[in-house]
């Protein structure tokens, strides 16, 4: 910039300084701003999860939902009650399902059967399914795990 006048040189330098500092500040503040704004999922889905909508759960049907990385099963019995269990079969961890024809829970892998209390009633499963607490708020079905 030899032929540039000192004044414009100074202005350029100030501009460069301002812009680069502005860019640095933005690069630092943008992540901070995004960080502070709460994410979509406000909490890690470890203990409580929205399993589904009551209106979408007809009597004598079941639905598999996700508890973080693990499967869960929410069942609406023929009488309209809503129950929730871990969907990991206690035999070899296959995902169980609700069978409307049996009106209870069944595992496709080795033909294990569980009743509507989650108790293992037939086949290889050695233990009952873990039961979860169900809370219904309006149309929302919340499932809570653990004591």
């Amino acid at each position: 910039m030899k032929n540039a006048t000192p004044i414009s040189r100074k202005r350029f330098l100030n501009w460069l300084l301002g812009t680069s500092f502005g860019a640095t500040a933005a690069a630092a503040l943008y992540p901070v701003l995004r960080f502070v704004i709460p994410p979509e999922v406000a909490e890690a889905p470890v203990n409580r999860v929205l399993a589904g909508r009551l209106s979408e759960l007809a009597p004598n049907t079941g639905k598999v939902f996700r508890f973080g990385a693990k499967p869960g099963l929410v069942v609406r019995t023929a009488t309209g009650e809503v129950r929730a269990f871990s969907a990991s079969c206690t035999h070899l961890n296959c995902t169980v399902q609700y069978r409307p024809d049996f009106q209870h829970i069944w595992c496709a892998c080795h033909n294990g059967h569980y009743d509507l209390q989650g108790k293992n009633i037939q086949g290889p499963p050695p233990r009952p399914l873990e039961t979860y607490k169900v809370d219904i708020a309006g149309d929302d079905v919340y499932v809570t795990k653990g004591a």
Partner: protein
Amino acid sequence: MRRSLVLACLLVSAAATAASRAPQAVGAPGKRAVDTCTACHHTLAEPRLKAPAAFADADIHRLQGVTCAGCHGGDPTATDAKAAMDPKRGFVGKLARSAIPEMCGSCHSDAAFMLRYSPNIPTDQLAQYRTSRHGLALAKGDENVAVCSSCHGAHGILPPSDARSPVYPTRIVETCGACHGNTALMTRYGLKGTELADYERSVHYAALTRKNDLSAPTCNDCHGSHGATPPGVSSVSNVCGTCHVTQRERFDLSPHKDAFAALEQPACESCHSNHAITSPDDRLVGVGAGQVCGECHSAGDTGATVAAAISGELTQIHERLAAAEARVRKAERAGMLMDDAQVKIEEANQGVVLARVEIHSVDPLRVQSEAKKVLDGAGVADTLAAAAEAEIRFRRTGLFISLGVIALAMVALILKIRAMEKEKL
């Protein structure tokens, strides 16, 4: 002729015992029995005579009001020993071994009688026993076989649901083992006597004793308890299939079903053994050394080709799944969210379980269709892990760019300082 006469006498004496049982020999149900027998025998010095009295307290018969006279006859109210043990009052004393089943059956087979104690109590034990190997041998005069008291005990009998009872599921091996583990005794019957040791190596035993899974089979679950008989060759798959329904269904679809029946080969036992049933390993599929298909098939025949195809599928899914799992775990440890990938891995694991069931159909296409699900799941998990790795690289690039911005800011500042200080001079 002699034998049937003896049998007739035994039957008559048993019936007589039941008939001549003094009314007070069996008291009201649920009310602890009280008799002079126990009181007197308690005081005796000889262990053989004292022991039964000592066991009396926990014995279920006593708790239900059955006195010593209920089995041994005599008068449980008499204070005089001679009167109490009077044969005219039905005293039998120590029962002959061959008489025991009939004696127990005199109550336990009487449905109307047993109703006093429980509405659903089984009453077919004696009938079953008569069909069993033990019962048949006893009928022929062999007294070295098990009778009721051999397994249930004679005095201090506990219900089978009591964990201390010799016929509680976890204790059955011990109880049967008293005779069936005795090689010298077993050779006389053409048995090896190693069955128990074999069973103790099995997954069923491990499930029963270590995982406390009382539904796991022990001796009586496959052989029957009172009607104890080894399952016939044709019925082995029925026995195993009682629990292992899905594998049995696939087996029935396979050419093995008819082939084994024709060869009079026991179905499940041929590959999995009968007592030493260990955890099956996918590597057992094939005709090579130590592999089960090679028992009948040899390299080059149809069976070998099928085995190779199935084995190939299984190896492939294991490798792919293991690789995907490792990649996902690595990304997770680095701090990436891998929930979706883990769900896929769980699904893929389920596919592995189902593929293993399909092995029994010996149809490579069926195995393949389950294997495909595994490969798909593993593939998706792998893709998600790759995406996580890409995200890590992307972040690295982003930070690299911000390094550039910082460097620029540094340069600008240095120039500014220079300019400022030059000005001052």
